[in-house]
C-alpha cells in the first residue's frame, strides 16, 4: 500500500517495463547522455512519452532523466534502451570503465575546477 501523501506512480515499476528488469542493451551508464531524435510518439506508453517530452528539450544524462521523472534508474534504463532501439532517442557514449581515462580528460577536469576558484 502506498502511504497517503507520497507521490508515487500508480503502477509498480515492472508494469512500466512490461515485466522486464533488464534493458535491451548494456551500453547505458548513469552518465550516458541522451537526447530525443524525433519520431512519432503516439504509439508509445505514457511513461515513454514522458521520457520523450523531457528529452526533447536538450541533452541530459540517464541519471538526470531518472531524477526529473522520479523513476528508479534501473527502470529508466529499460525505457531508454527501448527508445534507442525504436529510434526515438540517441545516445552519446560515456568513457568505458576498463580503460584508464585519457590524461587529457583529467587535465580538462582539473582546469575546469581550477577555473571555478
Amino acid at each position, binding site marked *: 500500500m502506498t502511504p497517503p501523501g507520497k507521490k508515487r506512480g500508480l503502477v509498480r515499476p515492472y508494469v512500466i517495463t512490461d515485466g522486464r528488469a533488464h534493458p535491451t542493451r548494456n551500453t547505458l551508464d*548513469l552518465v550516458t*547522455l541522451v537526447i530525443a531524435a524525433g519520431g512519432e510518439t503516439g504509439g508509445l506508453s505514457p511513461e515513454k512519452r514522458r521520457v520523450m517530452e523531457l528529452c526533447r528539450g*536538450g541533452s541530459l544524462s540517464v541519471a*538526470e532523466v531518472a531524477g*526529473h521523472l522520479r523513476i528508479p534508474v534501473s527502470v529508466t534504463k529499460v525505457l531508454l534502451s527501448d527508445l534507442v532501439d525504436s529510434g526515438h532517442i540517441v545516445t552519446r557514449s560515456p568513457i568505458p*570503465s576498463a580503460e*584508464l581515462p585519457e590524461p587529457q580528460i583529467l587535465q580538462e*577536469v582539473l582546469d575546469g*575546477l581550477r577555473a571555478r576558484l
Partner: protein
Amino acid sequence: MGSVLASDGVYLPDTVQTAVKLLVVGHFAVGKTTFVGTLSEIRPLRTEETMTQAGALTDDLAGVPDKTTTTVAMDFGRLTLNDHLVLYLFGAPGQRRFTQLWRDMTYGALGALVLADTRRLEHSFDVMGLLEEHGLPYAVAVNHFDGAPVFAEEELREALDLLPETPLVTCDARDRRSSTQALISLVQYLYSRNRQERA
C-alpha cells in the same frame, strides 16, 4: 512540470560531448548531500532505487513472502566544466549490501572523494574498503563540523590507515571554494596516478 524543466540551466549545452563522474561517498550524515549541493550548477537531483532483501523475518498481515525492501537514495549534481565536458558528482551511501548500486556507480567513474568526520573516523573504513574492492582510487576529505575534534594530519592518517600517497585534505562542505579545492586535490592525484600507470 514542463514549465520547471523549460527553465534555464536544466539541459546541457548542445556542444557537450563527454560526461565524466566522480563519487562523493561516506557514512550516514557525513555531509555528502551538502557537498554535492554546494558544487552543483543544477538543483541536486535524487534517484531512489528499491532494493529487495530476502530472508528477513517479517510479520506481514497479507501473508506475503518474507522479503523486505529498502529504499536507497543517491543524490547527484552537475558541473559543466567547459563547452564540451560535463562532470557529474554522485553522492552515495557506503553500505556494503547495495552491490548493484555500487557496480552502477563505480562503472566508468574517475575516482572518489571520501568524506570523513573526526567524531567517527572508524565509520569511514567500510566505504574505503568498498572502493578498494572496486579498484577505484580515492582521496579523503575531512568535513569540518563545528565543535568536532581537530587532529594533526599524521594522527588522522594513522587513524584512517591511509597509504602515503592518498591525499588527505580538510574541507567545509557548505563552502564552495573549500569543496572545489577538495575535488581538485582528488583530480590532481588521479592525474599523477594515471601518468604513472601509463609510463
